[in-house]
């Protein structure tokens, strides 16, 4: 069976043009100008079973890659499973996701990461790449077997949910990782500064009587790890930057030529701490929603390349837990199915640059640039996203593929939505519906 994508607006790292794509056996076998592939082959009496996707008005891009998702399996299957999370990913246009290791058991051994990858393969909706934890059980005490995990395919290591607090241990982690071709991804938070914190420390938390989460708690660790990178030469990736100060630190580190990369979430480019005046735990997230000044700095960071990637930090939670008082509710928001819509609505950037932040940039950070985020060309793997860049829509929680409903974007206008997703040459989302 082959697939013909006709008359699409093709966007990849080589630029933008209008054209047709033919896919067979998981690969792109031909790319041509608009109208040049379809009729010619029908006339030649080729494969009558060819599926034709009319991509008029749609962008066709390499599949999106999400560096930061919590799929909750194993351990918290009531909130999400790898299958339901993968379905949400596919509907959001993602063909690959990096699964965070704060599962139960933790993704700190080959057995657990193999299980996660295999569950992803069974679901068959997107490629699931498990991250490994930096420390056993994410306890911040003992390093995981980086080399064994690297042999099992792990490229990113993180204790996400927590930063590694001990600077000596973190120094050793960078040093030990430096000759293994893997990257440490840091959740930057000095925990002694955020004990009991619920929301961004500022005027809003002062009025609401809620414990504040100071920006400096993030910035101190960003600074520490930049200096550890300078010392050890090992690469670092900074997860979910949320403050203007962090963006400035990373910008300076990149100017110094250090091997650092960074991501930002859709909610940190669109939502401010003032939403907490509702006292709804839907808006509780780690790191917290901050101010408009921080949002502006993060948008600027994406624009000038200081921040390489948009990553969702998709964090499903069952409804019960989000109905707890703010100080007791767990942090986290859904993101997979809304990421593109938020990015296009809130970033004043060329579409090619938004796609870069959603596709080939994160693919490189994840170490999967040989399979995802590839140029649209003959011989390349057929992992593609087709989206309508102009459609306005609103998210309806009950219609989400995720098992959870904790999206903060209800009632907010989104722009741009995935229409079709192709994984390994197979259509997994067609007309906005998952096919399995």
């Amino acid at each position, binding site marked *: 069976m082959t697939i013909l994508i006709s008359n699409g607006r093709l966007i990849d790292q080589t630029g933008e043009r209008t054209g047709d794509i033919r896919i067979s056996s998981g690969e792109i076998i031909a790319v041509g100008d608009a109208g040049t592939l379809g009729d010619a082959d029908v006339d030649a009496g080729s494969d009558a079973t060819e599926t034709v996707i009319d991509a008029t008005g749609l962008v066709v891009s390499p599949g999106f890659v999400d560096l930061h998702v919590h799929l909750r399996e194993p351990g918290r299957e009531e909130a999400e499973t790898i299958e339901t999370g993968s379905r949400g990913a596919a509907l959001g246009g993602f063909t690959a996701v990096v699964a965070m290791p704060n599962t139960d058991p933790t993704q700190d051994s080959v057995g657990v990461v193999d299980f996660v990858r295999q569950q992803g393969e069974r679901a068959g909706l997107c490629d699931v790449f498990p991250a490994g934890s930096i420390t056993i059980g994410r306890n911040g005490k003992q390093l995981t077997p980086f080399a064994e995990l690297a042999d099992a395919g792990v490229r990113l290591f993180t204790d996400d949910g927590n930063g590694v607090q001990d600077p000596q241990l973190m120094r050793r982690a960078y040093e030990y990782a430096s000759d293994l071709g893997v990257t440490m991804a840091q959740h930057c938070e000095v925990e002694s500064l955020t004990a009991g914190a*619920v929301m961004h*420390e*500022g*005027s809003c*938390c*002062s*009025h*609401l*009587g*809620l*414990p*504040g989460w*100071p920006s400096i708690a993030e910035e101190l660790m960003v600074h520490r790890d930049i200096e550890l990178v300078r010392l050890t030469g090992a690469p670092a990736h900074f997860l979910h930057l949320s403050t203007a100060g962090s963006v400035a630190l990373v910008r300076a580190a990149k100017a110094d030529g250090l091997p650092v990369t960074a991501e930002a979430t859709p909610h940190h480019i669109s939502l401010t701490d003032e939403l907490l005046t*509702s*006292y*709804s735990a839907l808006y509780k997230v780690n790191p917290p929603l901050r101010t408009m000044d921080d949002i502006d700095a993060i948008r600027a960071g994406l624009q000038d390349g200081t921040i390489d990637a948009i990553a969702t930090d998709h964090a499903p939670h069952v409804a*019960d837990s989000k*109905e*707890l*008082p*703010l*100080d*007791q509710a767990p942090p986290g928001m859904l993101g997979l199915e809304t990421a593109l819509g938020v990015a296009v609505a809130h970033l004043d950037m060329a579409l090619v640059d938004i796609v870069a932040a959603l596709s080939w940039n994160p693919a490189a950070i994840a170490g999967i640039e040989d399979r995802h985020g590839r140029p649209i060309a003959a011989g390349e793997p057929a992992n593609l996203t087709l989206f309508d860049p102009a459609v306005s829509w609103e998210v309806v929680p009950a219609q989400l593929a995720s098992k959870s409903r904790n999206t903060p974007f209800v009632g907010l206008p989104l722009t741009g939505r995935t229409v079709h997703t192709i994984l390994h040459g197979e259509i997994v989302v067609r007309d906005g519906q998952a096919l399995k």
Partner: protein
Amino acid sequence: MTRSLLSIAELGDVGLRRLLELSDHMAEVNRRPNPKVPALRGKTVCNVFFEDSTRTRLSFETAAKRLSADTMNFAVSQSSLSKGESLRDTIETIAAMGVDAFVIRHKSSGAPWQLGEWTNASVINAGDGWHAHPTQALLDMYTVRTALNRTVTSSAGGFDGLRVAMVGDIKHSRVARSTTEAFKLLGADITWVSPRTLLPPEHDEHVATNLDDVIDDIDVLYLLRMQNERMNEALVPSLREYTTRFGLTPTRAGRLGQDVLVMHPGPMNRGVEMAVDPGELSGNVINQQVTNGINVRMAVLFDLLGSGSEHSLAGSSE
């Protein structure tokens, strides 16, 4: 539409003045030989206290009973919440028994707002976390108004020119937030007297960092409770040092003008913020605050649940 009392900000200027006026009627009821009226007969008020507070609970319970409402008490330690039942399920279950108002005290800021999403009954905030304690603010305003014989019925002012020093742990105090808001709505000038560590991270209030700097130029001295656990968080070095800078010591008491009102939301830390015998202070109105708590809580319950007619306060309960 169901009305609730969640914060002074939501109550607003007009509502605040209305409740203070209504409190006068309740004070009159409370002066009667039989201080009980049938105004809320048939109404049920449920006290839901997720944090211990004997004083506030008794005050609300007394207020409800003097208006002839039925009362229910729900204490968390005796409840199924300790068995893992959610707050929402608990509230929906109690509401299904037929409750007209919930009086809620919770250690988490915002909990009364969440509760309000799940019930059609009125919700009265009896203190949430560090955030708000509107009936404390009402009783404070009522106490100052009565003691100084000020009129607050006009749409502006009432406390114009009144100089208030609020001393102590502002950051962690729902009383400080609500009472400051109420004083400002009525036109008073507030100064927060506190070390930087006990102030909210960002605010617009006037601040003094030593009680001596303001004590000669105030009309109301409002002392807050200094809690022992603040020492463990390195917010102040020691209680002794706190008293040195911010306590009402005999020396400072000697500097207080005769007419300066001294207030405290209770319970007091004797020897810390209150390092004198308050009974020896001419402007001590701390016990009046407690008494007035009944008046203003009756006013709140009547305002939310009553017929709206003050005639129903005329007869006595049989």
